[in-house]
């Protein structure tokens, strides 16, 4: 009951917090209307849907919640702008993303600090000095503009910040609870088993004795990916774990951890594998090195990225079925089909959200575990009661 009450307060707070955003959103609607709605009709053709999906999968500079059309056919975007921070040729520049008026095709030029910026396919370009409009080559690449270093709080960065703060809030509260009581209450009671699960099922079995040093990273990465995956499934959510840059950053951190915590035994076995002819050792060492430094992190980053991207694409495509099949199945039929299909894929995505977080964390733990594993070959074997087990070879020799 107490938990229910708390979650009610939480959601109320969420709603209250979102009010200023919608008020702000109204402000930006007016600017859009003032510009005279860019596109006059809703997304309803196959090409438009494809573009819409691709656009959603990308990072963006403003937080777009939804769009609607007013009676005179103008498109209104509801959302809130995010700060744009750029390090370009004229140094640091900052402005709100609303300055671009939702333009993503390079038409709106923002002049600030003596530089001109355009936004093109979710990326901000700085026009070369003296240029007033962006020009394209045959492949639709900008020719007279360069990319400044983009420090903006983009939608993904916003998501990272929000989830980071949320995690910090939840778990530091859980940590504080332990000061006054042995067993946490309320939401902490939900979080504690998850923490114990990651520690006992992921960190301990894969890393072994020195698991304690790496649990902090594994717990952070597990909850970070899981929560972001779940948030990504929500209608207004952000596709953070579907950004290859994000998954790459996570994979590189895992790589750095296991490369720097690798012991002598790990490197020795990798570069100079004992027990095989000397001729093959350098070759095998090279293969192992490539596997450790490139293939392992690459598999980590691509697995997470591809799963989340595929999930989002499939969910959105199934929702699009409702639009595309209207002619053949009628509006009601196509909506039902689309709802039915997307409901089940959503349930699968809920599982995938957890699964991918689990897999990423487990594989990270496994790679770290391989790097810190001790050389057990020279040690005596012991059974579970601590009794010494004779090596089978020794026993065999004693018979002959």
């Amino acid at each position, binding site marked *: 009951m107490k938990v229910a009450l708390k979650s009610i307060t939480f959601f109320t707070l969420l709603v209250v917090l979102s009010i200023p955003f919608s008020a702000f959103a109204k402000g930006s609607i007016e600017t859009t209307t003032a510009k005279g709605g860019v596109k006059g009709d809703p997304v309803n053709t196959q090409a438009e849907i494809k573009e819409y999906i691709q656009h959603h999968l990308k990072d963006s500079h403003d937080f777009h919640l939804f769009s609607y059309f007013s009676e005179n056919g103008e498109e209104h975007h509801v959302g809130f702008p995010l700060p744009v921070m750029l390090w370009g040729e004229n140094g640091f520049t900052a402005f709100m993303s609303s300055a671009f008026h939702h333009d993503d095709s390079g038409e709106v030029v923002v002049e600030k600090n003596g530089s001109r910026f355009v936004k093109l396919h979710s990326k901000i370009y700085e026009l070369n000095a003296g240029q007033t409009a962006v020009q394209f080559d045959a492949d639709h690449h900008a020719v007279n503009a360069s990319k400044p270093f983009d420090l903006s709080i983009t939608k*993904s960065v916003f998501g990272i910040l929000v989830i980071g703060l949320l995690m910090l809030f939840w778990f530091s509260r859980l940590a504080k609870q332990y000061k006054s009581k042995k067993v946490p209450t309320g939401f902490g009671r939900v979080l504690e088993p998850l923490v114990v699960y990651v520690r006992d099922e992921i960190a301990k079995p894969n890393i072994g004795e020195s698991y304690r040093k790496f649990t902090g990273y594994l717990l952070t990465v597990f909850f970070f990916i899981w929560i972001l995956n779940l948030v990504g499934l929500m209608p207004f959510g952000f596709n953070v774990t579907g950004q290859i*840059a994000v998954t790459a950053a996570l994979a590189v951190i895992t790589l750095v951890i296991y490369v720097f915590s690798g012991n002598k035994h790990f490197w020795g076995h990798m570069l100079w594998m004992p027990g095989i002819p000397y001729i093959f050792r350098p070759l095998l060492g090279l293969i192992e090195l490539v596997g450790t430094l490139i293939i392992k992190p690459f598999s980590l980053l691509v697995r997470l990225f591809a799963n989340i991207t595929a999930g989002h694409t499939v969910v959105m495509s199934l929702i699009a079925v409702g639009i595309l099949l209207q002619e053949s199945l009628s509006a009601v039929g196509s909506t039902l089909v689309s709802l039915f299909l997307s409901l089940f894929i959503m349930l699968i995505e809920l599982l995938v959200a957890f699964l991918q977080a689990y897999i990423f964390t487990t594989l990270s733990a496994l790679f770290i575990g391989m790097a810190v594993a001790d050389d057990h070959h020279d040690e005596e074997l012991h059974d579970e009661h601590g009794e010494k087990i004779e090596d089978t070879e020794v026993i065999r020799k004693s018979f002959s």
Partner: protein
Amino acid sequence: MEQLLENFSLDLFVKQTILFLIIIFLMVKFAWKPIMNALNEREEGIQGALDAAENAKKEMANLQADNEKLLKEARAEREAMLKDARDIKTKMIDDAKAEAKAEADKMVAQAQASIEAERKSAIADLKSQVAVLSVEIAEKVVKSELSDKEKQLGLVNEMLGKATLN
């Protein structure tokens, strides 16, 4: 692959790396470390309590075994004491009996001996008195017999008459 690379945004990569490192640092400092410590402490506490309970159980069992042993010993001791007492009792009775018998025997023997001695002295006394008496009687008889001369002469005559002189 090409699209993958095109989608890759170095800016976001850098931002994510920095932010994530900060998140890790903050989470470790403010959440994971205290949580892990508390969990370990609690688990150790639980383990300790379980161990203590196990130990107490063992101790209890030991105590019970001790009690059982003590009880057994006490019982055995009681048995032994009872047996001893019984033995002593029997022995005392036997001893008393033997002693009484010996005393009685001794008394009987003494009595018999004194009776014998009495008897002997009585007999001896009797004998001496009989002798004195018989001597006195004989003296008196002889005196009286010899005082009547006539009769003595008649007797001698009678006797002489009966005797045949061969």
